[in-house]
């Protein structure tokens, strides 16, 4: 059963982020993915998140795919124009990748190549429309394709912390109309924050996948709480980590509890993001 079939069957899916290497040595990525291969339904391979240059999502996704793992490739608007995006998406489909997430991409000023010129030839909604068009057998110029790509399309939705649920719903509906079938939220640490949004979502039309971010330290929790607008880290959680004798173990327990809570809440799945601690994925999965 592939990811789409699992979604269609109403299964709670476990996605895990698997960042490709900054370099050519893929062994850590492959080993980390292989350790949880049976428990993770698909690996989301980020496309140079935070504008930090590393192996592309297409490359990373293909490497995992060739080892028998289902992947979700990311395509972003920052680094490629419409010609390159379509070319890479054809390559992905040709190599067997079945799932694509359209993302906007952080500005180069956030990353490690701050002198780079960003592209943004098309925006996120146009990227989704482009993907939808390609699945009708034509490219953006209207020219017929020899072989039509078929993807399960996803995107991101900024819902859960701070943002008005009405605005988030508007954004969601636009992306659904453009072709997205599932949505990943920013890291969620407090389910009550996303409930007002979820009440407005027609779950027959789409699937919402909250990100469960593994906190790695008290400092990380505090940093997110103070500096990241899209993320709400409750004080009780920070206190819990502060008082814990073994903080990494506590953080793993927090992530696992969040996954269980989201499953019980009726979400379609979760995306586990471990940001460099992919080797801790088995510990999290063991606890759910």
């Amino acid at each position, binding site marked *: 059963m592939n990811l789409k079939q699992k979604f269609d069957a109403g299964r709670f899916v476990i996605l895990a982020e698997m960042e490709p290497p900054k370099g050519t040595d893929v062994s850590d990525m492959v080993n980390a993915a292989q350790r949880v291969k049976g428990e993770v339904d698909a690996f989301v391979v980020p496309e140079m998140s935070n504008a930090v240059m590393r192996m592309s999502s297409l490359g990373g996704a293909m490497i995992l795919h060739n080892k028998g793992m289902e992947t979700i490739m990311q395509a972003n608007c920052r680094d490629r124009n419409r010609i390159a995006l379509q070319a890479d998406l054809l390559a992905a489909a040709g190599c067997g990748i079945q799932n694509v997430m359209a993302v906007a991409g952080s500005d180069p*000023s956030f990353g490690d190549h701050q*002198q780079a010129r*960003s592209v943004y030839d098309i925006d996120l909604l146009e990227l989704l429309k482009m993907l939808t068009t390609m699945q009708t057998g034509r490219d953006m110029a209207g020219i017929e394709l020899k072989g039509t790509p078929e993807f399960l399309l996803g995107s991101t939705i900024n819902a859960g912390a701070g943002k008005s649920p009405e605005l988030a719903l508007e954004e969601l509906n636009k992306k659904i109309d453009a072709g997205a079938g599932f949505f990943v939220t920013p890291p969620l640490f407090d389910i009550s924050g996303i409930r007002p949004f979820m009440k407005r979502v027609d779950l027959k039309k789409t699937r919402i996948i909250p990100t469960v971010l593994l906190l790695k330290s008290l400092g990380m929790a505090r940093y997110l709480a103070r500096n990241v607008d899209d993320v709400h880290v409750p004080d009780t959680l920070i206190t819990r980590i502060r008082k814990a004798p073994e903080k990494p173990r506590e953080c793993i327990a927090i992530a696992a509890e969040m996954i269980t809570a989201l499953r019980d809440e009726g979400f379609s799945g979760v995306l586990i993001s471990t940001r460099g601690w992919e080797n801790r994925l088995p510990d999290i999965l063991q606890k759910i």
Partner: protein
Amino acid sequence: MIVADKKPIEEIIEEIKGRTKILILGCNECVTVCEAGGKKEVGVLASALRMYFLKDGLDVKIDEKTLERQCDHEYLEEIRDMVDAYDAVVSLACGVGVQFMAEKYHSIPVYPGVNTCFLGAAEDRGLWTERCQACGQCILARTGGICPVSRCAKRILNGPCGGSTGGKCEISNETDCAWQLIIDRLNALGRLEDYETLSPIKDWSTDRAGGPRKVVREDVQS
């Protein structure tokens, strides 16, 4: 200067559909020089709109005004007392003027009457051509005063590319190859050794990476 081109009148009519009191607002700077949005063009557009609405039997008031600049608080203040009498303004300034107008007068819709095209020069009568893309880090000292960022189709900093033929660009035989111009110019200046020096990889962070740019001059502020 900022070079603009007139918008098709059909597009302007579509923008202002339903409005009954319209101010056509020109700008006496760049758009006057490139004959897209100065006093003369304000008059031409206003007359054309009046005729259009008259023909359709619509009672639409069209007034004309041209400011010295629309990118300056001081001059935009000149219309403060009159602007409330209108339910729309069609600004023939460049995109900067349209936005500054919209920022200053929140309750009046402002519509652009021109398409802002590029930073350029009046090469000939009725011919304006691009010379600068405002990349924020001028390299003209190295390229004999000819800009490959704005004038080379590929923005190549170490040119020319293989598509340069007979001094023309591969995209059109009416377009000069910027790098041929640079080589000719450096040759004339006796500085061909500059051409032999590889240009460093360009820092585009002064271009658009990082969002809208600003220039802060504390010496002017104080």
